[in-house]
C-alpha cells in the first residue's frame, strides 16, 4: 500500500506538466513517421523484405511510437542536471528510501503518461494510414511478451541511471548521452527493424542491449516471435539486467565515496 501511495503521489507530479510529455511523444511520432515514409518507398519496390511486408512494417512503427514513449526513458537528464549538477542528490540520499527506487517512481508515471498518449496517437494514425494493426498472440505468448516489456523497462532504466552516474566522476555526461542516443537510434530498431540492418550492423545489434529494450518488445507484441525465441530473449534480458545491476551497484558505491556535493 505504501508503494502504491508513493506511486500515486509521483503521478500527481506528472500532471503538473501537461504539455511536456505530449511534446516528447510527438518527437517519437515524427521520427517514426519519417522512417516509415522512407520504408514505404522501399516496400513499393519490394513487397516482401526478410519476412516484413508493408502492412507489418507499418504496424511495427505504430507500436514503436508506444514503445519509445514507454520504454525509452531519459532519467539521466534530471539525475545529471538536478541531482548531481545542482546538488539535489543530497536531499535524496538522506531519505530512507533507495535512490534507485526514488528515481524509478519518478520516471514510471511519466512513461505511463507518454505510453498512453502514444497509444492514442498511434490508434488515430491507423485511420490516416488505413493500417490494419494485427497482433498474432496467444495467451501464453502475450504473457511472455509482457515479461519482455517489463525486463526491457528495467534494462533501460538501469542503463540510463548508470550513464547518469558517470557524472560523479566526469561532472559532464552530455557527450556520452548523445553518443548513446545515436547508438540507440541505430541498434534499437528505430531506423529499421533490426533484422533489416546490413550484415555487420545486425550482428552488433544483437550483441548490444538496445535491441532488447525496443526492437524485441515491439516484435514480441506483434506476435512475430516464436515461443522459443521469446524465452531466449527473456534469458538474454535477464543476463543483461544482472550485468547492469552489478555495474550500477559498483558505480553507486564507488561514486558516492568520492562524491563531494560542492555548491553549499
Amino acid at each position, binding site marked *: 500500500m*505504501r508503494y502504491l*501511495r*508513493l506511486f500515486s*503521489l*509521483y503521478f*500527481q*507530479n506528472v500532471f*503538473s*506538466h501537461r504539455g511536456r510529455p505530449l511534446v516528447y511523444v510527438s518527437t517519437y511520432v515524427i521520427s517514426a513517421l519519417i522512417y516509415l515514409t522512407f520504408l514505404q518507398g522501399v516496400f513499393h519496390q519490394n513487397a516482401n523484405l526478410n519476412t516484413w511486408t508493408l502492412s507489418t512494417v507499418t504496424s511495427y512503427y505504430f507500436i514503436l511510437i508506444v514503445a519509445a514513449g514507454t520504454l525509452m526513458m531519459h532519467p539521466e537528464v534530471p539525475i545529471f542536471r538536478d541531482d548531481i549538477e545542482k*546538488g*539535489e542528490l*543530497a*536531499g535524496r*540520499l*538522506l*531519505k*530512507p*528510501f533507495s535512490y534507485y527506487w526514488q528515481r524509478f517512481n519518478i520516471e514510471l508515471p511519466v512513461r505511463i503518461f507518454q505510453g498512453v498518449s502514444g497509444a492514442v496517437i498511434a490508434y488515430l494514425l491507423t485511420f490516416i494510414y488505413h493500417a490494419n494493426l494485427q497482433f498474432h498472440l496467444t495467451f501464453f505468448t502475450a504473457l511472455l511478451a509482457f515479461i519482455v516489456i517489463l525486463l526491457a523497462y528495467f534494462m533501460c532504466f538501469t542503463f540510463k541511471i548508470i550513464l547518469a552516474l558517470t557524472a560523479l566522476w566526469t561532472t559532464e555526461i552530455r557527450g556520452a548521452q548523445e553518443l548513446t542516443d545515436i547508438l540507440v537510434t541505430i541498434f534499437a530498431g528505430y531506423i529499421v527493424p533490426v533484422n533489416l540492418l546490413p550484415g555487420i550492423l545486425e550482428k552488433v545489434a544483437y550483441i548490444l542491449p538496445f535491441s532488447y529494450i525496443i526492437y524485441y518488445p515491439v516484435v514480441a507484441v506483434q506476435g512475430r516471435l516464436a515461443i522459443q525465441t521469446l524465452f531466449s530473449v527473456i534469458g538474454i534480458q535477464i543476463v543483461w539486467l544482472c550485468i547492469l545491476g552489478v555495474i550500477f551497484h559498483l558505480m553507486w558505491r564507488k561514486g*558516492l*565515496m*568520492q*562524491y*563531494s*556535493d560542492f*555548491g*553549499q
Partner: protein
Amino acid sequence: MIISVNHLTKYYEVHQKEPGFSGSLKSLFHRKYYDAKAVDDISFEIEEGELVGFIGPNGAGKTTTLKCLTGLLFPTGGKVSVLGYTPFERKHPYLKQISLVMGQKNQLWWDLPAIDSFLLNKEIYEIPDDTYKKTIDELSSLLDVEDILQVQVRKLSLGQRMKCELIAALIHNPKILFLDEPTIGLDVIMQQKLREFIKTYNEKYNATIILTSHYMKDVEELCKRIIIIDHGKILYDGKLESIVKKYAKSKTITAVFEKPVALEKVKILGELVSFDPRKAIFSVPRNKSNVIASKLLENFPVEDINIEEPNIEEIIRDVFSNKASSV
C-alpha cells in the same frame, strides 16, 4: 554521547589549473591535483538535546563536517558515530532519526503545493496518519504557514519556502536536526521567527540541533555551546559565555552625565573611545570595569551608566585572525 567524532578528516582532490590559454592546453594532457583539506583531524562530542553552533569563515569546513555527520560525504579518515550508527552507511533506521536543512537548497517539489511534498515524506518515512496530521497542524501553526500549504512552492517567497522546508524536514520528528545556514537570505523578522521556532523545537522535543551560521545573532540567541572551526581545524569548543570571558580583553563603559564634565577629569579613568561633555565611552580592562564604574559614580554626576561586553562578532574575528593556539 549522541554524536561522537574522532579525528575526522576530509580531503577533496582539487584540480589546479594554470591561468590562460596555455594553462588550459596543458591541462588537456596533464592535470595537477592537490588535496584540499576541508576538515583536518577534528574531534568533538555532542550530548542529546544540545543546541550547538558551528561557526567559521567561508571555507572553514563547517558544511563539510555537517555532511560527514549526516552521511553525505565519505570521510577520508577518522571515525564518526551518530546515534550509534556510522553515518556514511546511511542505514534507513539512522536516516529516519535525522534531518538536514540547507539554507540554499530545497527538497520540496517545485511545481506542487508544499502539502504534497509533506505527504511524500509521510510515506517515505512511514509516518502514521494521526501522527502526521498532529505534526503538520502543530508545525504549520508554530511557523504560521497554514494559509500557504496549498500554494505551489515556486510561487512562495524565500521566507515562506524556508518555513515549508523546515516542516518537511521535521515531519518525522527527527532526534537530530542539522541546520546549515537556515536563515541565509531571510529578512530580520523572518530570521527572528525562525530562531524562536528552533529554540522552541529544541526545548519541546529535546532534539539535538547542530547549526551553522554566519549570523552571530543566530549563535548568540540559540547556542549555549559553540565550536569555532577555521581551515578545517577546531579553534574553540565550549560555552559561548566562556569565549567572551577568555578572549574579550576589555569591556565598554558608557556614561551619560546630568551636567557637562571636563575632558581632563574624565580621561584619567581609562581609555576614551569617544567623548562629548554629556557622554563618555570608555574601553577598560575586564577586571577593572567595576572599579572604574564605581569611580565614575562617585566622582561625576552620572545620569546613566552601561557596562557592555564586546560584540561577539569582534571576539570571533579576533579568534579567527589570531588562530588561538590557546584553545
